[in-house]
């Protein structure tokens, strides 16, 4: 008994060391497998950003835009910065898909109500398209008493908000999506593997009794 223990100790130790070494190498690692697509609406243009990780953009990836019935509306390729932009094709829900080759695929959905009217006139009152940040919206309702073209004010405000909120929208998107596997998930996964092993061993041991 004690001899088997002594024998298995070095093996367990080496394997644990190997696993730990792999874990240590992990922070550099993230995001080999998922591709992210992020889109934002700037005026009547949709600007997309596709990336594997913060530093690794999707270069020459194929972007496809679908309507709600999965009809292809348009497609294009990302540039060296992972960017691709296009005019809003129609005011319906849009599904954006990036195909980055080798089976990598990412999606982003745009809701119809976030899109401006296609005719070029900005849609009323709705200043910031991304639903998460709407606190500055009251600013968009300019006082009607002022003797200035309210539409001009609205456009100016929208433009200013667009540029101001862009970094925030980006940050939110990255918080939501650009998250590599956390240590918790990795350790949890290892736990599942050994848990399954334990279960199988338990039931086999019972059967053999």
């Amino acid at each position, binding site marked *: 008994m004690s001899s088997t223990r002594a024998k298995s100790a*070095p*093996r367990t130790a*080496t*394997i644990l060391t*190997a*696993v730990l070494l*792999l*874990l240590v*190498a*992990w922070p*550099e*690692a*993230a*995001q*080999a*497998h*998922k*591709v992210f697509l992020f889109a934002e609406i700037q005026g009547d243009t949709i600007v997309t950003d596709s990336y*594997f*990780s913060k530093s*690794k953009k*999707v*270069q*020459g990836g194929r972007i496809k835009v679908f309507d709600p019935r999965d009809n292809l509306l348009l497609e294009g390729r990302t540039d060296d910065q992972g960017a691709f932009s296009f005019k809003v094709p129609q005011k319906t829900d849009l599904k954006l898909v990036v*195909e*980055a*080759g*080798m*089976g*990598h*695929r*990412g*999606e982003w959905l745009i809701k119809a109500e976030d899109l401006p009217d296609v005719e070029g006139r900005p849609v009323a009152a709705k200043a910031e398209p991304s639903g998460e940040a709407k606190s500055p919206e009251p600013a968009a309702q300019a006082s009607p008493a002022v003797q200035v073209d309210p539409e001009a004010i609205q456009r100016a405000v929208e433009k200013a908000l667009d540029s101001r909120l862009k970094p925030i929208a980006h940050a939110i998107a990255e918080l939501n999506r650009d998250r590599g*596997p956390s240590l918790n*998930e*990795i350790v*949890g*996964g*290892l736990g*599942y*593997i*050994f848990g*399954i*092993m334990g279960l*199988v*061993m338990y039931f*086999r041991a019972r059967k053999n009794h």
Partner: protein
Amino acid sequence: MHISEGVLSVPVLLSGAALTAAGTAVGLKKMDYDRLPQVAIMAAVFFVASLIHVPIGPSSVHLILNGLLGVLLGWSAFPAILIGLTLHAVLFQFGGLTSLGVNTLNMALPAVVCFYLFGPWIRNPRSALASTACFLAGFGAVFLASLMMGLSLFLTGESFVQAAQLIVAAHLPVMIAEGIFTAIAVQFLKKVRPEVLHVIYAR
């Protein structure tokens, strides 16, 4: 190496799932349950290895270690890889649950092929020969997996030569890295725990 959800056509997904189920059944049937901890440890190593990432060209690739699993586990590589990939899909959203069958097949079948091709050489007392066999197992498993991946994409409509060329080229550095890693790992195991190799190749 993980194909995402929504890329492959339904027939490809279904046949992948069916073949993976068959391979897993064979793996479980052939498994010596005294070696279950070893299978679990290799599943854990596979699970973690995919987090090591090598940025290459237009895409990015990562260690797979299916060759190492193949030579150490034989057919049991199927259940080990299936569990590793299931956890990848559920915890990290790498690949996906619908493409799980195809992804498992793409990585596990080359592992089994390398087990039969190179396994018998690995116990050869001449260490140069054994190391070469290990290198070829690590290299070949990723090479075959790349071809299988190209085939999956081809069956869905991409041009095979183009897809396969791209995937093989992108994984070339990984093949070399895996070949070296497999050779070192197996030589190390031979010194420290030779019976790990004896058990599977004795039968």
